[in-house]
């Protein structure tokens, strides 16, 4: 039963929020026509909503504390449902086959419009996996990731415009330029820790966008570059319909390649070094890991995927302008990584598909998209910092003769 004191507490919460949201939610001023609009119904929604929500909030907090206490007492942490599915080959292998067949047949089953949406989702899968290297594995919060995406997109657009180079040459070039910029940004921020890094990378992203917007001779300013060619198929140019399907398959191939590389990286020497760096910088250095090199490779490799994603984006939309590369894109990519689970490849893929596809199909709620992303970031951090599919920590158990110490 819900106790009386709980109800009283929630009542106070609801009153507090009614007070808090009163000016912004209830009154709307039209300063041009000098009319005030009173929206009392909003106050009722807020009151009832926060009353109910405060119960949920307290319940979840209690659950979390209970979980933490159990973990502290040394009880086995039960792997979540998602982790158990991933570990069980009997479920995992057939599921992978089904997903693979679905992905291959997608453009023939669904319309061109759906295929286009899927291409954007796949671009974000790639960006998410790239950022996952920087944020998830190496623990460096990069808020200017979109800058590398812009570098890739503009690399394709400008080099094609001036020199007529083709998509296939520029795809690796875009990746390489992304990597170069990653290193360029990496150098000055090597000495910085978490929070400073976030701000400097954010600043870097904004600098790139402002330069693209203001330097008209170089980037054609806010109007951008249009008529970027789509990729050709062995020298043949394709119709819009065919080339969309072609881009879709290129994206699938690139995603598989990304997943393969990220998976291999994770278990490599450098991947272990990233994880060590994320856990503790000082301890990591004491273990003889070169901090500068580790950070730079994280930035460079993360940026490479963004560069290639940018080339794909330019090829898909055939038009680039600075408005596509605002700080909010960086934050959406960050949301993907956080929601999916920092450090977990499967999680990031699921996160990207959810965050990009859901808003597309829930057009009616599109205004609320960023609001929801904000709530999502806070709620995930408070209640489930590991994300949907949290990264499984490797645990080595000593299974020798009995009597071995419990504390490893």
């Amino acid at each position: 039963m819900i106790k009386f004191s709980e109800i009283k507490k929630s009542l106070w919460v609801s009153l507090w929020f009614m007070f808090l949201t009163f000016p912004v939610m209830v009154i709307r001023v039209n300063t041009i026509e000098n009319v005030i609009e009173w929206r009392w119904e909003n106050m009722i929604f807020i009151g009832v909503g926060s009353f109910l929500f405060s119960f949920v909030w307290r319940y979840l907090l209690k659950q979390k504390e209970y979980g933490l206490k159990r973990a502290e007492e040394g009880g086995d942490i039960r792997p979540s449902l998602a982790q158990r599915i991933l570990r069980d080959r009997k479920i995992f292998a057939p599921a992978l086959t089904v997903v693979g067949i679905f992905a291959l047949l997608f453009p023939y089953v669904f319309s061109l419009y759906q295929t286009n949406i899927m291409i954007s989702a796949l671009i974000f899968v790639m960006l998410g996996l790239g950022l996952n290297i920087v944020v998830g594995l190496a623990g460096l919060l990069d808020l200017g990731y979109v800058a590398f995406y812009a570098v890739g997109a503009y690399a394709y657009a400008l080099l094609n415009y001036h020199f007529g180079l083709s998509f296939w040459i520029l795809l690796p070039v875009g990746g390489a330029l992304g990597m170069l910029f990653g290193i360029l940004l990496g150098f000055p921020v090597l000495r910085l820790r978490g929070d400073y890094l976030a701000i400097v990378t954010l600043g870097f992203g904004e600098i790139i966008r402002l330069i693209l917007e203001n330097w008209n001779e170089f980037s054609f300013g806010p109007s951008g570059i249009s008529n970027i060619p789509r990729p050709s198929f062995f020298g043949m140019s394709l119709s819009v319909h065919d080339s969309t399907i072609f881009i879709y398959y290129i994206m699938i191939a690139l995603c598989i390649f990304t997943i393969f590389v990220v998976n291999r990286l994770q278990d490599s020497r450098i991947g272990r070094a990233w994880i060590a760096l994320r856990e503790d910088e000082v301890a990591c250095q004491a273990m003889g890991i070169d901090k500068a090199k580790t950070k730079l490779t994280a930035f460079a490799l993360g940026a490479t995927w963004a560069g290639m994603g940018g080339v794909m984006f330019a090829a898909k939309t055939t038009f680039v302008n600075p408005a596509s590369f605002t700080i909010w894109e960086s934050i959406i990519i960050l949301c993907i990584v956080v929601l999916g689970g920092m450090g977990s490849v499967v999680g990031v893929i699921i996160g990207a598909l959810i965050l990009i596809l859901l808003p597309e199909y829930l057009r009616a709620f599109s205004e609320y998209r960023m609001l929801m992303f904000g709530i999502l970031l806070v709620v995930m951090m408070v209640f489930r910092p590991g994300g949907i599919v949290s990264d499984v920590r490797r645990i080595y158990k000593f299974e020798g003769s009995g009597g071995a110490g419990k504390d490893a």
Partner: protein
Amino acid sequence: MDYFLELFLGGLTRGSIYALIALGYTMVYGIIELINFAHGEIYMIGAFTALIVISVLTMMGMNTIAILVIAGFIAVIYSCAYGYTVEKIAYKPLRRAPRLSALISAIGMSLFLQNYVLLAQTSDFLPFPNLIPDFTFMEPYAHIISSAEVVILITTTIVMILLTVLIKFTKMGKAMRATSQDKDMARLVGIDVDRVISVTFVLGSATAAIGGVLIASHVGMINFYIGFIAGIKAFVAAVLGGIGSIPGAVLGSFVLGWTESFATGYVSSDYEDVFAFVFLVLILIFRPAGILGRTEKHTV
């Protein structure tokens, strides 16, 4: 020479506004080592609340000075309430979590508050009435400094002095300094750390709200996005001066204000925001602790 003086005073005004916002960043950082990304949004909400109150009161037909005082007062109260609530929801449950989590939560809060105002009010720029009257005795100097700028400078100075007194000489200030040095030790000697943190957020929000009302009536336009850029720049100022240090935040704000003012006056106004960021990157490379900051030692 007049142009130089105009830019100098313009930079000073700009700097004092940044200082009012930067104080909140630096105080919060000093105590819980978190960049409160939502701080710029608190400033924006302060300005919006003031605008709403002003519009309602103007239609009721009050005189200007009374409106200014009431609107400022209500804006400060609401900003404090928002600052307090944001801390309780997004940061308090994360006290013991890794710093990255708290930072992401702060970004989420900032995103939420922006869109909350966007959806509940409007995305357009709203005209903000100029409430500060033109003083007659200021007329001979009107070509270099406006009355509004004088009011901003005076208000900022008063707020700074009050804040310094509060932190240096009151019991709460002592508790704040103790908490920022060592939270666990502070708790051991009987300081209610949660309360100190709440008070810090409330104080920071109050100064941000004052800044919000002043700048809004000086510039004459507000929308839901003003908090973001102002917040970032104020943060740059705080880092420049040495984050965690209150005189540092003020000094850093003035340096940033002058840099921007002179750079846009003599070089180009297209890249106004770029200067701040380039400046930030340079400081962090050459003097990561800031002008007045101490270098910390990091242990495992």
